[in-house]
């Protein structure tokens, strides 16, 4: 992965991940996608020795984040991302099964950019992922990060 990643998907459910990849592939959005399968792995990718937080300009254009994750949960990852100067401006979209108000409220409190509930229906799920990818990767204009 020599090129800078464009999309980071943090998702522990292999089937959901596969369906997301499938939807993104159909929209031609998977070329520079990377995935993490739990919160700890995500934090390592972001803040680890070789993490993009340390190298300006290498971060993804958007992070799709599940909330219920092994080891470190999604809210904690979100909190760390939004608390750090270097990663604060990366848009984070929570993509989760949870419709619980407490999760929605807490995510927004921590500074999430969007909160999407995964639909059961594949079409709707696929179109949600596709729209997300299109919006955040192609349409959204992020602020220039220093350097």
């Amino acid at each position, binding site marked *: 992965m020599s090129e800078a990643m464009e999309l980071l998907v943090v998702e522990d459910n292999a089937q959901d991940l596969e369906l997301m990849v499938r939807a993104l592939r159909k929209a031609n959005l998977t070329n520079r996608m990377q995935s993490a399968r739990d919160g700890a792995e995500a934090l390592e990718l972001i803040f680890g020795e070789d993490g993009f937080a340390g190298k300006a300009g290498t971060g993804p254009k958007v992070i799709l984040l599940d909330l219920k994750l092994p080891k470190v949960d999604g809210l904690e990852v979100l909190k760390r991302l939004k608390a750090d100067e270097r990663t604060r401006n990366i848009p984070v979209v929570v993509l989760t099964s949870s419709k619980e108000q407490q999760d929605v409220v807490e995510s927004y409190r921590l500074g999430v950019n969007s909160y999407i509930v995964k639909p059961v229906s594949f079409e709707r*799920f696929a179109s949600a992922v596709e729209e997300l990818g299109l919006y955040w990767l192609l349409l959204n204009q992020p602020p220039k990060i220093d350097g």
Partner: protein
Amino acid sequence: MPRQTHGANPPIGGETSTRGPARPTEGEEGTLPPKIFRLLIEATPSAVVLANREGRVVLANPEAEKLFGYAREELVGQTVDMLVPERFRAVHPSYRTAYSTRPEARPMGKGRDLFARRKDGSEVPVEIGLNPIETPEGSFILSVIIDISERKAADERQKATLRELNDLRTALDEHAIVAMTDAQGTIVYVNDKFCEISKYGREELLGQDHRLINSGHHPKEFMRDLWQTIGRGEVWKGEIKNRAKDDSYYWVDTTIVPFLKDDGKPHHYVAVRADITERKRVEEQVLELNAELERRVAERTAELEAANRELEAFSYSVSHDLRAPLRAVDGFSQAVLDDFGALLPEEGRHYLQTIRAGAQRMGQLIDDLLTFARLSRLPLTRQPIDTDSVVRQALAELAPHSDGRSVDLRIGDLAPCEGDPGLIRQVWVNLLSNALKYTRQREAAVIDIGSRAEDGETVYYVTDNGTGFDMRYSDKLFGVFQRLHRAEEFEGTGVGLAIAQRVIHRHRGRIWAEAELGQGATFQFTLGTEENQ
């Protein structure tokens, strides 16, 4: 009854009595000159009458004139019987004769209840002192008469007061536990009730102080306050726990009244008490029961809270984990259709579609169930609601479902209400979507919406001319996942009316339905008020 024992009157001769004063004391003064004797009689501040042996008055002083109402001239020479009330007049001369034969000095106060008759006929209670006087001129009797009407009246008053006091004390003793102590707190009086409750004999209590029955229950400050209060001369009231001789305890409601000397310092304390042991016992029992009840309520609350947390965790888990596999079932079925659809026979594609429909339906059921469960958990907020605009918004939202159909919506008067806006809106959406759904097969659907006042409350209603239902199954109508129609006829999970009912019940209202199969249905509900929540 008065006894008249008026003494006889042995008068002294003429105006020149030469013998000394009445009392035959051993010749102290010797002979008293008659003039001095006369002056003495005149100056005596009591009525004095001197009579001879025959009972005729020889001398009377001004006080006698005043007492009897006769002038001196009217008295002298008359018998003293005229000064006796008429009812005793018959016997008086015999008393007089008896006295004359055995005369002795009779001091005041001996022989009670004597009366004198005045000139105007009225009677005066008197006391009479009789003194026989022997002179060379013969025997005389000197009577000194004192008007005691004032004293008698005072006596009567005192007697009445004492009687009253005695009655009060009898009543008090009958009711209360009474004790009296001196200023030092030494018991000087106890009544029977005191002995009875303390189980001490009177002789064991007198001379002791109240430490004898001290239970040790009250803190030092309590007793100090008591003594300081009564020491200041103020009444103290309170409830005291005492210990009886047999070491049992009793409670008394106590009032201690200090009685003060002129300098304001108490000389005695009177304590009046009532036995409140039973009341105290009941009070303690009530306190214990309350504490027990509170403990149990706290326990149950903790249990409920734990159950609620578990339920929340459960819903959360259902929300998260149950939907993911369904997404896989649906998603990969679709993937097979997309990628390999061409390789499958028609039947195989149909099966995959069926799998997808099942997964999606289960997803819907899970969502509805979660919504239903959440209804019981979330707190209710009551606000004024403009029912009319809520209904119009709901209808606008549902409009796509009746696209291309002929639906006659008749919106009548819709009274505003108070309730949770989100939840009440949900009730209307559910009832109206039902009305639209079940009139689908009607060429001309008619839906009547409105409210009316009935028995002091507002009844809201939605009436349709749709497919209706059999009233025999009406009890199933509001149950979760209960359906009165097959899924092929009318889609749905059977949660809509259950949600409506739960919302209405949480508002302390009622919801009910009337219908006839094929003729339409009417759903009606009321919303309770804040007060009966």
